[in-house]
């Protein structure tokens, strides 16, 4: 009962003071969506625990990483800490256009997604990371289903990475085989590692895989704006997708429009939240390599990095 009165009062206060003074945060829980990769889960827990230290109530809900923007727009979830340009840029932009969700801040961390190989591949094909050298070694990557051509193991088709277009445009000696999930990609690397078989596959940074299997991205002709639409862009005058993916994609924070008025304090903290690639990889490593639970990993990270996050909450 007391809760409800407080809620009523604070809502009334909100209505009266919207935009003028900083009101108290609502006692309703801030709902943070978590997805199926560990850096995002740990980062969500880190920020969630920061909110809790301010007295907010926080809840986590696991959601699909594409559908989450629709959920935030409708207020079913409150914020998203990892909006990857390459993977979720489209869903995010579409949701922003419909309204209800907005761009809060951009991390220092940059994201990159492209063809990648673990280090042992370089021993077999020393000309790497150049894409032409990779093409010369195509035979090393051949599998029964691809015949003489090399196999490139792509991510799930719904990630829309245009690998096939790239192969066609650059005339590469590769066949794109799509894995059905990230787990299938990791399972392939783990299997290749046992016999040090050369493998080239889709990967991204920041990611726990960097900590487990050191490796490099293949260097394609550098990305130019419009390379995917305008044949004139990129090295080949008559082809689209004749370039690599952007090497410095953004990593943004998005939030429900009403977060600003409902939890003004938490929102002002969220605006200052900013992580680097190293910090994100560290978070992922605590879970994926050290085997900690995400909650514990977040707590550990917070104690070890007070200097980083304390200023954001003041």
């Amino acid at each position, binding site marked *: 009962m007391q809760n409800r009165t407080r809620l009523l009062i604070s809502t009334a206060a909100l209505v009266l003071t919207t935009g003028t003074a900083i009101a108290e945060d609502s006692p309703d829980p801030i709902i943070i969506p978590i997805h199926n990769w560990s850096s995002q*889960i740990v980062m969500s827990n880190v920020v969630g625990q920061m909110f809790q230290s301010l007295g907010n109530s926080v809840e986590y809900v696991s959601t699909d990483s594409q559908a989450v923007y629709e*959920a935030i727009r409708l207020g079913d979830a409150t914020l998203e800490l990892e909006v990857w340009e390459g993977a979720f840029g489209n869903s995010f932009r579409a949701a922003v256009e419909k309204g209800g969700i907005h761009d809060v801040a951009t991390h220092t961390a940059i994201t990159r997604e492209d063809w990648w190989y673990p280090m042992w591949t370089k021993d077999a094909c020393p000309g790497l990371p150049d894409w032409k050298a990779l093409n010369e070694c195509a035979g090393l990557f051949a599998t029964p289903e691809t015949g003489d051509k090399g196999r490139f193991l792509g991510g799930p088709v719904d990630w829309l990475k245009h690998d096939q277009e790239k192969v066609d445009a650059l005339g590469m000696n590769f066949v794109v085989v799509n894995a059905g999930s990230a787990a299938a990609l990791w399972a392939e690397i783990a299997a290749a590692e046992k016999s040090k078989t050369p493998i080239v596959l889709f990967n991204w940074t920041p990611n726990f895989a960097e900590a487990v299997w050191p490796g490099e991205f293949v260097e394609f002709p550098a990305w130019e704006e419009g390379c995917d639409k305008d044949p004139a862009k990129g090295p080949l005058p008559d082809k689209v997708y004749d370039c690599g993916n952007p090497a410095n994609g953004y990593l943004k924070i998005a939030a429900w429009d009403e977060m600003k008025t409902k939890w003004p304090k938490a929102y002002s903290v969220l605006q200052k939240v900013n992580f680097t690639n190293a910090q994100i990889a560290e978070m992922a490593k605590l879970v994926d390599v050290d085997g900690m639970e995400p909650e514990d990993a977040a707590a550990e990270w917070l104690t070890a990095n007070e200097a980083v996050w304390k200023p954001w909450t003041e």
Partner: protein
Amino acid sequence: MSGALSRLPRPALALFCLAALLCLGRFILPDGLMRLPEPLILPFARWINTAFAFLRDDLGLMVVTRAISDAVEFCLDVTANLLYGKSRWPMLGPIPWVVIAATMGMAGYVLAGWRLALLSAGTFVWIAVMGQWKWAMETLSVIVVAAPFSVLLGILAGTLAWRFRRVERVMNPILNIAQSLPHFAYMIPVVVFIGVGPKAGAIVTIIFSVPPMIRMTLLGLRAVPPEIIESGKMSGTTKWQLMRSVRIPAARTELLIGINQVIMQSLAMVVLASFIGMPGLGQKLLNLLQSLKIGLSVEIGITIVLLAVVLDRLSKAWALKQPEHLTAGASWMVRNRHLLIWLGLCAAGFALAALHPYFAVVERKQALTLAGPIDAGVDGFIRLVTPLTDWLRWFLITWVLIPLRDGFLWLPFSAVLAFLAGLGWLVGGARSALICLAFILPIALSGWWDRAMITVYTVTVAVVIALLIGLPLGVWAAGRPARASRFILICDTLQTFPSFIYLIPVVMLFGVNDVAVIAAVMVFATVPILRFTIEGLRGVPAETIEAAAMSGAGPRQVLWHVKLPLAVPTLVIGANQSIMFALFMVIIAAFIGTQDLGQEMQRALSSTDVGKGLVLGFAVAFMGLMADHLLLTWAAGRRKKLGAAQSAA
């Protein structure tokens, strides 16, 4: 040969010839007979999406579904608070794990004695000491709400169907389709109408687990002997009293079997429902698999199996248990002794929990783990068999799978239609031929023909291999009763073990390709064949076998000429189940990487495209229903012939 051909019904023969002709004439056929021409493809997905948009926006169904989901969410909050201490009303939980373990043990004791008590308490102790308590309680907090909802809904719908013939007539086909729709197809509309999170998980679980309850209610109410009803009426009951005090108690066994089915189906949804936000064991399992922690995932898999076994045994014991009738005049203490013991145990549990926090919550850090040895075992196994699997992979892909797959895609769709119609005619005359066409034609019309053919190819190969492995293994296993029950136990375990766990080792063994997909599907499809072979052979009457032995048949002859022919109806059910399992698994195998309907289904789920998801779901369901129709009709015809032969003899 010509004799066999001429014995075929003429129309079936004509249809087979047509199919063969269409294949032979492939090179001169107009394109329209190869694949359905573009203008004839019907935009089912758009129609469904329009219908859904109308329901949601114009009819305001959203308000209704949101109201339902709010009610479900309230219940979920209560159980979540009690079981794992989510900060919601009534703010009492979490209940210490020792208390819950004691309660479950007591339930086992009351229903079936010491052995079940040990099993059920032991399971909960395992969950706690392995540090999975919170996850398991998150899962159970959803099931504890979903299962009763599902039971009530099932009884209600089942009663309606029993009372009104027309309802039954409408409901039956819906149930048939619902039970063969892949799980993912259900989930997309739920995401649209309910959103994501535990409530969506609960609602998907309810939808998935309600059909068997409806069927069992209908069956139970129908089977009540008229004498009982008569005596009820003679005692002057009203309609309602007759229902409540006569019909439902008389249908008790069927209803309890229905409840058992609901619980099993709910557990089967644990992992899949986590795709739309159900927390707990399933979500944890997927996250662990994502970072290749196979050992830890297997631990969770074991927990899910143990939970399924315990809940299965408990509910079956409840179904078998006859109501106890104490002598009149027994004291209150005697009548309620179980209650008193339980209260005592709970008090002891709470005291223990207050004494030491270990007995309230086991932290993850204090948890025991088997992950190390399991990981080492899996790793060693993979290293050991890699030379063999590399060869197998090369051989299967180059010589078997790619040619077969190309063959399936090479077939003109018109030839497939003609062939299936012919098969239908052969099995059940014109009616079956039409039924087969009615199932397969919409798939062609939907425009997903190529992908559907890849699904058919995967399922066919997997089921054939499953038959080759399952039948001989089943025959061998049925040889001795002890061996048979051991194999049935293995089947039970494999069936409840979350199928996602197979996917990762399979990729490590074979890589991302069709061999991996077929291996994963095959494991799952072998289970029902093995089980029904054993059951079928065990079910052959001992007198028949004895009679055959007395007439001088050797063990081999008995097997080939007596046991197997008599077991055929059961074997057919096994094959039928195997196809159903394979269809479910082939959709999940999209997570390895396929190019079939499953891959599109996965895409539809991530873009919440209801129309596309349902169209793909129906395509899969129709394939399953067609196989089901063909096999069951054939078995029924055979049984009739067998019966006729026997009565003639």
